């Protein structure tokens, strides 16, 4: 019957078109998956950088405190240090 014949021809065409797309579908899906991984990889790097920069700022803040400590010690011991060296010459 013509109706059935045409339906079968159409069905065959549908399957054939699908088969022709398979290579492209594979490629696109593969690229999509790896692109997601790339995206996530970039996110990881950016997150790490952001966190590290915050931590680095905290570390840098400690510099002032440490310098003050060193200056305080030096103030207390300045004359002792000067006298020590002078003794090397004058004794």
């Amino acid at each position: 019957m013509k109706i059935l014949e045409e339906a079968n021809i159409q069905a065959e065409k549908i399957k054939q078109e699908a088969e022709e797309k398979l290579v492209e579908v594979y490629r696109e899906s593969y690229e999509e998956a790896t692109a997601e991984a790339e995206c996530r990889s970039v996110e990881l790097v950016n997150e790490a950088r952001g966190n590290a920069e915050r931590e680095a700022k905290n570390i840098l803040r400690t510099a002032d405190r440490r310098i003050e400590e060193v200056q305080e010690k030096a103030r207390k011991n300045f004359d002792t240090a000067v006298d020590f060296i002078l003794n090397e010459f004058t004794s």
Partner: protein
Amino acid sequence: MESEVQGIIDQILHDARENAESILMEARKSAEMMIEKQKELARQKSKGESSSILKRGEDDAETIRRTIITDAKRTVSWMVLSEKERLVTSVLDEVKTRLRAFSQSENYVPILQKLIVDAGIVLSGEKLEVLLSEQDETLPLELGILTKKIIEKTGKETELMISNKKIKSLGGCVIKTHDGRIVIDNTFSDILKRRERELKFETAKILFH
């Protein structure tokens, strides 16, 4: 009779169209499944590469983190070290100032005499030229006594002569052999320079104790 036949024909056509629709639906379903299967295959195959990409990302992230933190710590250490260096240098600058003042005090002469004798002994006596600053030339150095001390230590006939050449110094002297081939610089500034490393080390130990 005619209507019965038409009815049968209509039924056959209706069935045929339904079958046709069914065939097409089956074909579309089959096509969709084929494509979905292919997508899934691609996803499975890509897992290895995706893992590598993520692992690389994690490694890069860790490297960046470590670099930034290390740089920050290094910067802080450098800042503290620079300040310590500055403070140690300020001690040595103060020492130079006090030595300049000391060289004008009465306690300076015995020290200058000792520096002359020490250098004379190192040069093993004989004819020696003593270079002093303009200010020190006028001091009562008692070269005769100093010469005797050098002779006692070296066993050699010794003569000390004050040179016409002057030196600029915080204090101390320069002693040369007569032929000028060997020179000992016993000025305060040269002693400070020679012993700089050791003195800075000792100064730092005291300052930052």
